[in-house]
């Protein structure tokens, strides 16, 4: 019998197709690599470096050259500053052309030389924070004011090299040591887990309830479905500030309502008191993201075969039995995929908590900690270390996700 399996190896056609594919993908790969892969590598690099916010702007030599008229004697004043407080500056040098009619009569500072009207100085190495001033007697022929103005406008070329902590070879483990040694890290991790687990589960359960409500056709179903998506579609900044306004301890409607209904005695500081703030941001997370799970679950529900339910009706199954024994097994796949996806996204969430509490009152999660370390404490290296920890967690979660995904969806 002849072999009828497809030809092995890659023919010219297949190769052309693959070439086209890479051609089409190249722009995307290039841009994503540039903006995702490179920053990720950078984060690893920075996390091993003692970088602070101040190091971002590389220190440059600052100079000022001015001509002053002290009555009978004119002075040329040179100032050279190394603005970096930690690093010395090497090869500091300056070059300026003096205006016509200005001549230097005094002794030149060390390292300086005149060539015609060109003054060039080489200061060698300036210490960290150096601020040096040199005065040289000068003589002006003609209008002094004019010469002063000309001196002010004269172009000064100055060079000086400060080694940049971002690119030099200083490495440190301090960022990580500091991160893991403090008790703060573990409390941040605990808060993150609480927020992520309850936020995810809550959004799933509430979303399932909403999907069950709308899984039938009636007039106004479309309107309600659109309405229930509002929290997700609206800009996070708008809804977060609305929640803050609503739950404000002094002028918030929620507090006024609770007092009026006799539920609470006085004002409750919803986003400022310790255990309550965390619960509130979790509730906000559920409120904002239940629409997403609701949408997915509803889509899955509507694709379930109705024959099954008719058969169950014939057998006399009750509504709860039908839900538990027929719908739930069908929904389990989407629920587990949604759980993992939402888990990862909730874990990554930054905006919501940052806007609601700024990470105060026991709501500082890992992502907010990145911001706090990098910008509030100005320690970029420490922030990067937290980011590395987040990334490691993410890798573990996505490993889980892809295993579930291939089982459930055959991806």
């Amino acid at each position, binding site marked *: 019998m002849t072999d009828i399996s497809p030809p092995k190896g890659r023919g010219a056609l297949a190769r052309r197709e*693959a070439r*086209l*594919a890479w051609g089409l*993908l190249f722009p*995307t*790969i290039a*841009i*994503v690599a540039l*903006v995702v892969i490179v*920053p*990720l590598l950078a*984060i690893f690099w920075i996390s091993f470096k003692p970088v602070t916010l101040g190091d*971002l*702007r590389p220190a440059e030599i600052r100079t000022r050259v001015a001509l002053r008229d002290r009555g009978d004697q004119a002075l040329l004043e040179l100032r050279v500053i190394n603005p970096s407080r930690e690093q010395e500056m090497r090869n500091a040098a300056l070059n300026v052309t003096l205006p016509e009619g200005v001549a230097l009569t005094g002794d030149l500072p060390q390292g300086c030389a005149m060539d015609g009207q060109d003054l060039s100085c080489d200061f060698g190495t300036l210490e960290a924070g150096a601020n040096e001033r040199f005065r040289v007697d000068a003589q002006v022929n003609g209008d002094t004011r004019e010469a002063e103005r000309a001196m002010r406008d004269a172009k000064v070329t100055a060079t000086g090299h400060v080694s940049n902590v*971002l690119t030099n070879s200083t490495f440190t483990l301090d960022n990580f040591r500091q991160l893991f040694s403090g008790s703060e890290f573990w409390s941040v991790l605990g808060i993150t887990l609480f927020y992520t687990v309850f936020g995810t589960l809550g959004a799933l359960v509430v979303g399932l*309830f909403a999907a*069950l*409500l709308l899984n039938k056709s009636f007039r106004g179903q*479309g309107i309600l479905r659109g*309405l*229930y*998506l*509002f*929290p997700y579609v*609206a*800009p996070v900044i*708008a*809804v977060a*500030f*609305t929640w803050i*306004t609503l739950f*404000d301890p*002094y*002028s918030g*409607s929620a507090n*006024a*309502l609770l007092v*009026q209904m*006799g539920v609470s005695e006085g004002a409750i500081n919803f986003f400022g008191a310790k255990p309550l703030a965390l619960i509130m941001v979790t509730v906000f997370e559920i409120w904002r993201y239940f629409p*997403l799970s609701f*949408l*997915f679950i509803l*889509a899955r529900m509507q694709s379930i075969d109705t024959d099954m339910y008719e058969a169950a009706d014939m057998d006399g199954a009750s*509504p*709860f039995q039908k839900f538990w024994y027929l719908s739930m097994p069908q929904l389990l796949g*989407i629920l587990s995929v949604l759980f993992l996806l939402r888990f990862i996204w909730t*874990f*990554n969430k*930054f905006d919501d908590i*940052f806007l609601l509490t700024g990470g105060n009152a026991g709501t500082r999660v890992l*992502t907010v900690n990145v911001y706090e370390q*990098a910008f509030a404490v100005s320690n*970029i290296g420490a*922030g990067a270390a937290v*980011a590395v920890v*987040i*990334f490691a967690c*993410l890798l573990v979660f*996505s490993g889980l996700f892809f295993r579930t995904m291939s089982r459930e969806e055959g*991806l």
Partner: protein
Amino acid sequence: MKILHKGYLTGPIIGALWALVMSVTLGVAISFATGAAAKPALIGSLILGLATGFARVRITNRWAADAVAVIVALALMAVGLGALQFDDSFNFVWRVALSVVLAGAVSIPLNSILRELRFGALTRHQFEDAVIRFLTGFGYIFFTAIVVIPFYVMVMTSMKSQQQLMLNPLDFSIDLSRGWHLFDSYYELMTQFHFGRYLWTSFYVSVLTVLLTLLFSVPGAYAVARLRFRGQKVFSRGILLIYMVPMIVLALPIYIAYSMVGLRNSILGIVMIYPVTTIPVALYMLQGYFRGLPVEVEEAGLMDGLSRLKVIWKITLPLALPAMASVGLYVFMIAWNEFLLAFMLLDDPSKFTLTRGIASLNSSEIPRQHLMAGAVIATVPIMALFLGLERFMTRGLTAGAVKG
């Protein structure tokens, strides 16, 4: 549970729970509309509900059961045990009218919740159906309330003045005599806080983001969906993985790089970075759509002598237009709502996007209603777009994460 399968138990219990739901709903609604106190009372609600539920399963005539509910509600009010406790700002007529409304709100829905229920023993089916109808009614009220209340507060607060807010935070009644002055905060935002410019910036940044995203992701998605090449599977997983990298992790190095290159505080920088955050999502969504298109149409094109690129341009793209609309809308929404990057990268008020502009309103010197007016300005365009094109939008959202 078996013990509950009796009409004379199920009816009153569900009735009582429903009455509780309705009195709280009505009380909250009255408070939010007028600022006056109408306090739901536990005992009164339970009595009203028990009586109505009992009447519903006992009396077959529905009007008679309604009448029972009204009479019980008025009697409870008369003896001071009303399901709603009114404060002094309600006169007698209002109290009677609201009590009748409450009786109707309890009795009329109970008519459908408790239909099919007999007075005696119930089958499991009848019992569970009644419970489900109760939960459905409760669910509609609950979800509508939690969605509507924050947006209602947002809009109403933006039309108040600071004193009105402090005086009674619950009073959202609109003082129509103020006329156009109701919109003072909007006017001030537009004239003094440059919100007109922010709106425009946000708009064109979002549109550019959509265009750039589609430009990059359409060819990529087509390649992943249709063409065979080594590493295809790894690639489509890689897209998802990148989709999951948290923005704050990327934002830090981007901030550093932008600071060094001098791209901070420039719209160009924002327009460069936004599409990159959306390309992986768009690519993932679009490849799902492309997979769903019939291959035969494209093969027919290839047979007729079109090149691959021509096939994409003349056959696939026109077929995928609705999908591209969905993806475009979704990307527009992401770009319009984006906050973190705008917040970190923009400091110059003349270059703010709308979300960054609102963030700058969050200070103690600027009154609350300005902040809420800003929130309304940011929300209304995206909502209008969403409601107008809801079909595309929901499809975009569902395709965004996993195939359903």
